[in-house]
């Protein structure tokens, strides 16, 4: 096998691989076809796809719909690890940093599970090793006798500084919500630092991070609408570093009329995809529809950027996100069918 080292060739190679992988993802028509299938048909179809290996591996530990869900998650984790393995140089660094959000999710799940006295087996079921922390490390964390010992294992990792600062307050209050928000804020701050550190391709990485931050902040604004929460209470849920400052977000979150809210948001956001998506939010919609349309706008815009910059971080990020949503959609189809939700209802929650 020939190995490509040095020059722009590795970038071209990995970006092409990403485009090929993206083209293999399920198209919209396939989801619409699956909406009319029964649960056994959907399960069989998933088994016939690239998830077969994981289903076979996990069949001895899980069954039914749980097996499908675990297999989808494991496939996602393996796929992300495989992408990290083939991505070269700075792209690998960016990709690895981008995937650290899974570390936050896993670490918090382990800490919370241990604090709640959950068994190691139960915690293991909920962990998805798609980030920089591998299965062995996460298993060792789970096997530790207390949450504090698990936290100590994180000492050399970027997220330790926040955990060290917030952990005791979280244990005292019994709520890890603030710690979780702080970890994500720090995660985005670290991504921005990395993107602006002068590395090649940093600008493109920064653009996608800022788009992600804007989308998340706007989703949170819509999510908190109608809740009797003061601006002060929400100070730790906003992510700085993109189109809005924390103070602006606090102020915007208190706007009551939808038109005024959309106008204020439109004035600040730069991405045309987001502007279009915001226009569509002028009429009151259920929050999941708002979240869905914003997610679709984000994916469409990233897709367009990846076509404009074919040998950059964009193709990788687009694939990572689209793969994540493929797994989410398949899981939604299976779970929705199992819960006997009508097809139209399930369709509302699919990101297609």
């Amino acid at each position, binding site marked *: 096998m020939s190995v490509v080292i040095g020059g722009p060739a590795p970038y071209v190679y990995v970006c092409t691989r990403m485009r090929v992988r993206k083209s293999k993802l399920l198209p919209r028509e396939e989801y619409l076809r699956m909406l009319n299938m029964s649960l056994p048909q959907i399960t069989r179809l998933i088994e016939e796809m690239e998830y077969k290996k994981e289903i076979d591996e996990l069949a001895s530990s899980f069954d039914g719909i749980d097996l499908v869900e675990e297999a989808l998650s494991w496939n996602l984790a393996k796929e992300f690890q495989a992408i990290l393995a083939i991505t070269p140089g700075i792209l690998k660094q960016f990709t690895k940093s981008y995937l650290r959000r899974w570390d936050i999710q896993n670490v918090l799940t382990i800490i*919370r599970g241990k604090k709640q006295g959950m068994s190691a087996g139960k915690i293991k079921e*909920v962990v*998805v090793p798609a980030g920089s922390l591998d299965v062995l490390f996460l298993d060792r964390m789970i096997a530790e006798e207390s949450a504090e010992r698990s936290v100590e294992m994180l000492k050399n990792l970027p997220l330790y500084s926040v955990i060290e600062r917030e952990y005791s307050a979280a244990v005292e209050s019994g709520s890890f919500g603030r710690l979780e*928000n702080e970890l994500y804020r720090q995660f985005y701050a670290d991504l921005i630092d990395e993107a602006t550190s002068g590395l090649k391709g940093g600008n493109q990485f920064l653009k996608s991070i800022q788009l992600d931050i804007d989308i998340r902040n706007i989703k949170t604004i819509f999510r908190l609408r109608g809740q009797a*929460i003061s601006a002060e209470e*929400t100070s730790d*849920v906003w992510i700085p570093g993109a189109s809005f400052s924390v103070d602006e977000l606090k102020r915007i979150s208190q706007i009551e009329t939808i038109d005024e809210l959309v106008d204020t948001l439109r004035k600040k956001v730069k991405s045309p995809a987001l502007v279009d998506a915001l226009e569509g939010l002028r009429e009151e919609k259920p929050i*999941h529809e708002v979240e869905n349309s914003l997610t679709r706008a984000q994916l469409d815009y990233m897709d367009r950027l990846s076509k404009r910059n074919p040998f950059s971080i964009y193709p990788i990020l687009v694939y990572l996100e689209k793969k994540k949503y493929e797994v989410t959609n398949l899981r939604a189809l299976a779970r929705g069918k199992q819960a006997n939700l009508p097809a139209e209802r399930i369709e509302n929650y699919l990101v297609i």
Partner: protein
Amino acid sequence: MALRDVKPTRSELIALKRRIKLSERGYKLLKMKRDGLILEFFKILEQAKDTRDELARKYERAQEMIAIADTVEGAIGVKAAAFSVGDVPQIELKSKNIMGVVVPEIKSSSVRKSPTERGYGLIGTSSVIDEAADAFEDLLESIIHSAEIETTMKRLLDEIESTKRRVNALEFKVIPELTEARDFIKMRLDEMEREELFRLKKIKARTEA
């Protein structure tokens, strides 16, 4: 009360009359209490029906929302969010009195929470988790309210049952038996009086002869 055990004396008659009066007064009061309790019961029954319907509706909604949360976030995401719950809802149990029946009064705290108080972060989760949590908080409130109403209803029913038994015992056993004993004593006393009169007449006739 067997009639052979009754002493046909005047003092016993007076005592019996007193007991009959007391029993009749008790009977009237208990009957009024029973009727009052039945009225209260029907009021509570209406509330209980409404609460039951509401509970069933909220249960269905909670089931639907958890199914949607499972659909969107997967069992993995829902379990991870469930691990965040640290603050357990508290209930305070007091009691109040309805016509002598002690019924519970349940007050709950920390059931309803805002998304920022639930223990999970807003940045890493989606709104379906909020909606599922909202639905289950609603359901829990309904369960607590329903527990109060249904326990009250059960206690009232028990009390109506026992009051009814007492009313029936007084109406069909105690008062008739006492009345019978009173009549028996009256009859015996009248008979004894007639015997005494007859004896006196006999003695008088013998003395005159």
